[in-house]
């Protein structure tokens, strides 16, 4: 009889382990805070704001003016 109880306990353990293994991923993950990195401020003085192709052309023209 004791042997039988031992087998039942073993089977219950297997059942619980199996269920735990199949728990949704969301339950296993730990919420992490987004990493916020501080960017070094860029001094705008003397640096050209290059956003568009026109900005590229303007910067090229200015540089060529200095080479003439």
């Amino acid at each position, binding site marked *: 009889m004791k042997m039988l109880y031992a087998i039942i306990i073993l089977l219950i353990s297997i059942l619980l382990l199996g269920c735990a293994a199949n728990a949704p991923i969301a339950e296993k993950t730990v919420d992490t805070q987004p990493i916020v990195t501080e960017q070094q401020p860029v001094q705008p003085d003397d640096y050209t*704001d290059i956003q568009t192709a026109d900005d590229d052309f303007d910067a090229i023209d200015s540089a060529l003016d200095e080479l003439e």
Partner: protein
Amino acid sequence: MKRIVTILLVVLLLLSAVAFAKGGSSGGTVVKPKVVEPAAPTPDCESFATVKERVKCRLTQGQEKETTPEPCRVLPVAATCVKYYRDSVPCYEKKGTQKDQCFKDVLQFSKKSVKEQAKINAWPVRNYILLLLYDLEERVEDAVDDKTLSADEGAQLITDIIAIKIKLFEKAPASEIKADIATLKKQWPSDIK
């Protein structure tokens, strides 16, 4: 009592089997045999004779291996030219003043402004123009990727930019390069910002 225990045992056995079966299918990866179709042979872009053909090939086929940038090929020693290209790659991920700062850092500007730098040493300023021209190339490549521009139109624009770069390396007069830039500006499609 024995009967109840036996039934309980059978039920538990069945449930355990279900739990294990589920665990196996979600935990591992199911590998399905992949049917690999033989890919069509892609042409080697380096095998084309003209710059435009090579550029067009790279625009349509992509670039699998690193090759010497086109303007560097005309130089007796391409290593320095290639280094500028390699070092400036991270700059193209940046925007605004950060991009400009990155260019100037790569070229080791001793002054922040082009005007001040040109007074001391003009060579970094020439290379600065190269990196700006490369920025324009990137915009053309993006436009081809977005189908805003055809591969042929894109290849033509990039070929024109490469020609200007070569003139810069060959130390052509600024006035001559200015004229080429003006022509490029006229050809520049208005929808490429």
